[in-house]
């Protein structure tokens, strides 16, 4: 008998934080092992969960990008939402689009230089192709109360209106049985989310709407409040720092090739790496200054840290996540099995 395996974070509480819906993580390899198609597997898993649920299906051999343009291994290739065991037939599931490598796409999206340098030959997925949607909603799937947004990185219960942020690096830690940080987003992450890069079929935007150095939020001091009080499950600062260092070592310049998020700027600043300060737009500066990241701070000379020194102090040097605690993934998720 075949088995379909998946990981589950149940609706309820983790520490003092609310998980507003069931969160499900599926490895495409486990779907292959079950003998089911991906759609049938997602339908089968949804049928086991009575409450609202958000579902991410991963290809851990593929690559993806964070919203600020850091390329990492492990990609969400399908997302779904379910409620009362059902997936809405029109709006309940979406596949992410596979992007073809070409010199043209790297020219349009300079952060993709990381693709050849760090992940040559791997398949790339970010968000869905808008032409595959029934109607041009944002990158969201909804079934009943469950809403799974921005290519499966923000999930919510529309009735209680509670939300949880699941940035891709944290989800990859869950898939890799690592360690995560759980806390409230706070103002720094609220601002950082807006520091996107231009991508076709991106995680949040289907077109190349906002480039490195710009802010998608574009609302001054209000940006720090937009996503401020939301529970989040993210990678540890050390894991985040490693991913950013890899990007910097691949020649990425914050503000030019990759986004000017507080985390990226912090790593680059302490390692003494180039930051394209002049390419960061005034509207982005306004938001960064509101959370204590001034142009002057970036320009002040200070002792450069080695990568190892920075990684040791990553918790202290990368800002973001209020009142966090670390948790081993094995203590956070339940591994579930369905006999097929």
């Amino acid at each position, binding site marked *: 008998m075949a088995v379909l395996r998946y990981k589950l974070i149940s609706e309820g509480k983790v520490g003092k934080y609310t998980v507003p819906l069931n969160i499900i993580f599926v490895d495409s390899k486990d779907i292959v092992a079950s003998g089911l198609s991906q759609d049938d597997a997602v339908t089968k898993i949804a049928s086991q969960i009575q409450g609202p649920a958000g579902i991410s299906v991963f290809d851990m051999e593929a690559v993806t990008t964070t919203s600020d343009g850091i390329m990492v291994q492990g990609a969400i290739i399908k997302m779904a939402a379910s409620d*009362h065991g059902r997936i809405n037939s029109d*709006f309940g599931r979406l596949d992410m689009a596979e992007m073809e490598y070409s010199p043209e796409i790297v020219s349009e999206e300079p952060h993709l230089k990381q693709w050849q340098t760090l992940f040559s030959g791997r398949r790339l997925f970010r968000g869905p192709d808008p032409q595959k949607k029934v109607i041009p*909603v944002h990158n969201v799937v*909804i079934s009943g*109360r469950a809403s799974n947004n921005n290519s499966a990185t923000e999930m919510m219960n529309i009735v209680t209106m509670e939300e949880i942020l699941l940035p891709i690096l944290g989800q990859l830690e869950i898939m890799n049985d690592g360690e995560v940080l759980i806390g409230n987003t706070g103002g720094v992450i609220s601002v950082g989310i807006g520091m996107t890069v231009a991508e076709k079929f991106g995680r949040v935007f289907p077109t190349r709407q906002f480039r490195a150095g710009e802010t998608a939020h574009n609302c001054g001091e209000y940006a720090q409040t937009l996503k401020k009080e939301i529970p989040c499950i993210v990678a540890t600062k050390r894991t985040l720092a490693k991913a950013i260092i890899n990007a910097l070592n691949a020649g990425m310049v914050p503000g030019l090739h990759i986004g000017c998020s507080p985390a990226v700027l912090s790593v680059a600043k302490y390692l003494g790496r180039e930051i394209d300060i002049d390419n960061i737009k005034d509207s982005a500066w306004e938001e960064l200054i509101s959370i204590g990241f001034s142009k002057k701070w970036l320009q002040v000379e200070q002792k450069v840290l080695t990568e190892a020194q920075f990684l040791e102090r990553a918790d202290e040097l990368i800002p973001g996540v209020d009142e966090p605690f670390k948790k081993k993934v094995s203590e956070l998720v339940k591994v579930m099995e369905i006999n097929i």
Partner: protein
Amino acid sequence: MKLMHTKLPDFIKKMHEAVHKHFADRDLNIKGLENLSSAKMQSLRTGRIEHAVEEMVLTTGINQVEMVIIPRVPETMHTVIIKGLGEDGEVKKAILEVINILHCTEEVELHDCNDIDDRRPVIGRH
């Protein structure tokens, strides 16, 4: 052309009448139109919905009928009009913005019901 769209009060009245026609002592609970004060309702579907209400109220084992109207597309885009009024109450200045609103889909109303006759056309048809 007069009948191409039904007035909102007429739509509501027609739905109640579809129940009262058979059971004077029963009523129909309509949810989802509370925010509308003035609207024209698609006539083509109005008749079919009246028919569906009547069919439901006459179904054996059904004691009451409820009608819930929710957006078919669960992310609706709305224009936000920020108006600046002068002393005389006239609009002196305006800013137009947009806001997308997320809504639940029908599963939230249906719970574990398995007897669902989905008569909706595919999206894009009327």
